[in-house]
C-alpha cells in the first residue's frame, strides 16, 4: 500500500523521529509506525493535533534527527502556522512531511482540498508520487533533498495513491548509527529565530534556495519525459499519469508525455524544452491533473515565453471537481486527439436504494442520539456536528446535524450562534477531536460568556480513523481526564454519564439546556469495536 511504502522509504532512509495525527487517507502511516517503532528503534507519537505534531517534528529536526511527519490535507491547514516559518528556518535533521488529499471526499467532510496550493504559499518543495513504488522512492529522495538543501520537503499523495496496493521493490533498511543516540540542540539563533529583521533575510535565502532546488529538479529523473512522436503532447503528475498511460494504450496512441514528480518548484526548463524542442514546437498540449488547474496555469505562462502558438488545454476537457478516473481521462485524450472513443456502458439506469454508512451495532452513539431525541423537541434546537464517527448524526435515521465544518468547530460556531441568537443549541464532539481543537473554543464560551450544551463523546479511542490512542484513552499511561480539562477551563455545569443510563442522560440534557452558562455532558462509554 502507498502509505506502507512511505513508511518503508522512511525506514530505508534511516528515519529517527515520527509524529502524526490520524486522518484518512494518511492514517496507515502512523498506524504502521505505531506497530513497528519500538522494534525499528524509531521514536513515534500520535500527537494531539497536526500543528502540535509538526512542532514536535520541527523540534526533532532542530536537534538534528531525521524526521517524518504525516497528516491528511486538512491537517496541513491546522499545521500551516508552524509550517511556513519552518520552511524559512529550514531543517537541521532532514525532514519530510506527508500530506494526503482526498479528491471526491471519500473520507473527508468539509472540502475537496487541493493541498498543492499550500506548496506555493509556504514555498515548500513538493513531490507527487503516482504509485506505491514511487511513494517509497520519493520519500527517500525527499529525505535526500532535505539533507542537501536544509529544507523540509512535502510529499503530496491522494486517496488513490495512498490506498493503492502494488508491487514494491525493497531495499535495505538503514539503521543509522545515531538511532539509539539522542540528538542535540545546538544554539543558533540566526537559524532558528524568525524575528524581523532577520526573517526578511531568511525569505531572501529561501527564495534563492528554491531556485537551486529548481535547478536540481531540472536534472531529476522523477520529472520524466517519453520520446516525441507527435506534435501533440501531454503533461501530467501523480495518479493522473497512470490514467494517461492507460488511455494511450487503450487508444493505441504514441504521444510524448511529461510526468512531473516535482510539483514545486516546477522544472521550467524541462517544460519549455518539452513544449518547444529544437526540432520544432508542439501544436497542442493536454494538461491532465486532478482538481484545480495549477499546472495548466504554469504551462500557459511558460508557453507564452517560448511557444506562443501552443494551444494549452486542461480544464476544458478535464473536470475540476471530483477525482479523475481512467475512463474520464481516456475520453479526454480521445477528444484531444480527435479519436473516436465510446465509453462502454449500459444504456439504462437502475435505481438501487442508497446505503448510508451506519453506526456499528452496539455503538454507544445510538444511545446518545436516541437520548437527545427523547430529551428535546429537535425542531426547536440547533445541532452542531464535528469530525468523527458521530458525523453520522447527519444521516438517517438520526438527522441531528444542522452545521458541520472543521475539527473542533462545533463549539466555536456554537458560541457565535449563541451570541447571535436566543436559540437553544447542542453540540456533539468526540474525545480525540476535543483534544485536537475543542479546548480553545470551550475556553472562549466561558471567557466570552455563552451557553451552548456541549456533549463530549468519550468512547476512549480515535474510532473513525482506526482506533488510535488519545490523551484520555485508558491505555495511555498518565492519561488525562477530560473532566479535569473541562473543569480547568472554567465550566461549572459538568456531568459524566454513561448514556446507557438514559433517564439520567435525558434529565441532565433538559436541565443543562436551561442554564445561563455553558454546560458539558461527558457521555462516557467505550467504542464497541475496542470492547470486542
Amino acid at each position, binding site marked *: 500500500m502507498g502509505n506502507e511504502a512511505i513508511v518503508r522509504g522512511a525506514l530505508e532512509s534511516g528515519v529517527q523521529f515520527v509524529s502524526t495525527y490520524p486522518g484518512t487517507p494518511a492514517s496507515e502511516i502512523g498506524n504502521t509506525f505505531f506497530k513497528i517503532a519500538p522494534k525499528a528503534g524509531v521514536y513515534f507519537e500520535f500527537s494531539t493535533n497536526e500543528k502540535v505534531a509538526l512542532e514536535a517534528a520541527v523540534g526533532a529536526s532542530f536537534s538534528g534527527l531525521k524526521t517524518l511527519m504525516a497528516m491528511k490535507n486538512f491537517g496541513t491547514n491546522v499545521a500551516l502556522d508552524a509550517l511556513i516559518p519552518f520552511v524559512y528556518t529550514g531543517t537541521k535533521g532532514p525532514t519530510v512531511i506527508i500530506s494526503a488529499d482526498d479528491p471526491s471526499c471519500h473520507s473527508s467532510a468539509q472540502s475537496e482540498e487541493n493541498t498543492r496550493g499550500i506548496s506555493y504559499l509556504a514555498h515548500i518543495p513538493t513531490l507527487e508520487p503516482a504509485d506505491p513504488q514511487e511513494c517509497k522512492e520519493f520519500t527517500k529522495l525527499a529525505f535526500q533533498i532535505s539533507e542537501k538543501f536544509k529544507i523540509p520537503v512535502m510529499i503530496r499523495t491522494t486517496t488513490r495513491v495512498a490506498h493503492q496496493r502494488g508491487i514494491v521493490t525493497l531495499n535495505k533498511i538503514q539503521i543509522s548509527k545515531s538511532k539509539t543516540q539522542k540528538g542535540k540542540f545546538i544554539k543558533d539563533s540566526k537559524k532558528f529565530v524568525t524575528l524581523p529583521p532577520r526573517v526578511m533575510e531568511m525569505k531572501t535565502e529561501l527564495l534563492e534556495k528554491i531556485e537551486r532546488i529548481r535547478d536540481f529538479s531540472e536534472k531529476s529523473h522523477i520529472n520524466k519525459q517519453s520520446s516525441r512522436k507527435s506534435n501533440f503532447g501531454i503533461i501530467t503528475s501523480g495518479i493522473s499519469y497512470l490514467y494517461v498511460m*492507460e488511455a494511450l494504450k487503450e487508444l493505441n496512441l504514441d504521444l510524448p508525455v511529461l510526468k512531473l514528480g516535482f510539483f514545486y518548484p516546477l522544472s521550467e526548463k524541462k517544460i519549455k524544452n518539452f513544449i518547444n524542442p529544437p526540432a520544432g514546437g508542439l501544436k497542442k498540449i493536454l494538461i491532465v491533473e486532478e482538481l484545480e488547474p495549477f499546472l495548466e496555469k504554469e504551462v500557459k505562462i511558460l508557453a507564452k515565453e517560448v511557444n506562443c502558438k501552443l494551444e494549452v488545454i486542461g480544464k476544458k476537457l478535464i473536470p475540476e471537481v471530483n477525482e479523475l478516473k*481512467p475512463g474520464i481521462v481516456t475520453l479526454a485524450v480521445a477528444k484531444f486527439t480527435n479519436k473516436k472513443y465510446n465509453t462502454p456502458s449500459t444504456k439504462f439506469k437502475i435505481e438501487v436504494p442508497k446505503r448510508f454508512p*451506519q453506526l456499528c451495532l452496539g455503538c454507544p452513539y445510538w444511545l446518545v442520539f436516541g437520548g437527545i431525541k427523547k430529551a428535546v423537541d429537535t425542531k426547536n434546537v440547533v445541532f452542531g456536528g464535528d469530525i468523527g464517527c458521530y458525523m453520522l448524526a447527519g444521516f438517517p435515521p438520526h438527522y441531528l446535524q444542522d452545521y458541520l465544518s472543521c475539527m473542533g468547530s462545533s463549539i466555536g460556531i456554537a458560541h457565535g450562534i449563541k451570541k447571535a441568537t436566543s436559540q437553544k443549541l447542542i453540540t456533539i464532539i468526540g474525545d480525540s477531536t476535543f483534544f485536537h481543537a475543542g479546548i480553545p473554543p470551550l475556553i472562549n464560551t466561558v471567557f466570552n460568556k455563552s451557553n451552548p450544551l456541549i456533549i463530549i463523546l468519550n468512547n476512549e479511542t480515535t474510532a473513525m480513523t482506526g482506533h488510535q490512542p488519545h490523551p484520555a484513552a485508558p491505555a495511555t499511561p498518565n492519561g488525562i481526564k477530560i473532566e479535569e480539562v473541562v473543569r480547568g477551563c472554567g465550566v461549572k455545569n459538568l456531568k459524566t454519564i454513561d448514556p446507557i443510563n438514559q433517564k439520567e442522560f435525558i434529565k441532565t440534557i433538559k436541565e443543562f439546556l436551561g442554564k445561563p452558562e455553558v454546560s458539558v455532558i461527558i457521555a462516557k462509554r467505550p467504542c464497541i469495536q475496542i470492547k470486542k
Partner: protein
Amino acid sequence: MVIVGTGGQGLITLLQVLAEAALIEGLDVRTSELHGLSQRGGSVEVHIKLGKKVYSPLIPQGRADLILGLEMQEALRSYPLASSKTTFLVNKQIIAIPLVKNLTEGEVLKNLKKISKKVILVPASEICKKELGKEVVTGIYLISAVAFKNLIPLKPASILKAIKKIIPAKYLELNLKAFNLAKKT
C-alpha cells in the same frame, strides 16, 4: 475485477489475498480501496487489476471482467462498471438497508441479467453458516470459488498460499476450511 459489498464484510482482506496470489504467480497487480467513515456499514467497492503490465488501479466504466458481489443490492449498484461481457458472481444474500424499500432477490437478479447473461448466484453465506457455523468467511469462500471456476487468472493453489500468508494464525483454520469448501461449488 471489482469486489463490492458492505462495510465490515472484509473486502480489504480479500484484496490483500488476491494481490498476494498475483505476486506469487509473478503477475503485475494494482488495487484500490477506501478507508474511513465511508466504510462504516456503507457501500464498499474495491478494485483489483492483474496482468503483465498494469497502469492504474481503477477499472474504467463498463470494463470489469468480473464483479464479485458479497451482497446482491451492492452487486447491482456497481452496474456502471459492467457490460454484457462482465461475469457477475454474487452471494445470494440481501443485507437490508434500514428505513427504505429494499430490492428483492428476484428484482436484483432480473436487473443483473439485463446487463449480462453471465450471472452466477452462489448461496455462499448460507453454505458457510451451515457447514462452518460462521458467515464471516463468505468472502474467502467466494474468492476461492472464483479461482476454482477459472474466472480469474490465478490458480487455487496460489490463493491457498496467499491465505496462509495474509490471514492471522488465529483464524487460519476456519479460512482454510472455507477454501476447501469452495472446491465443491
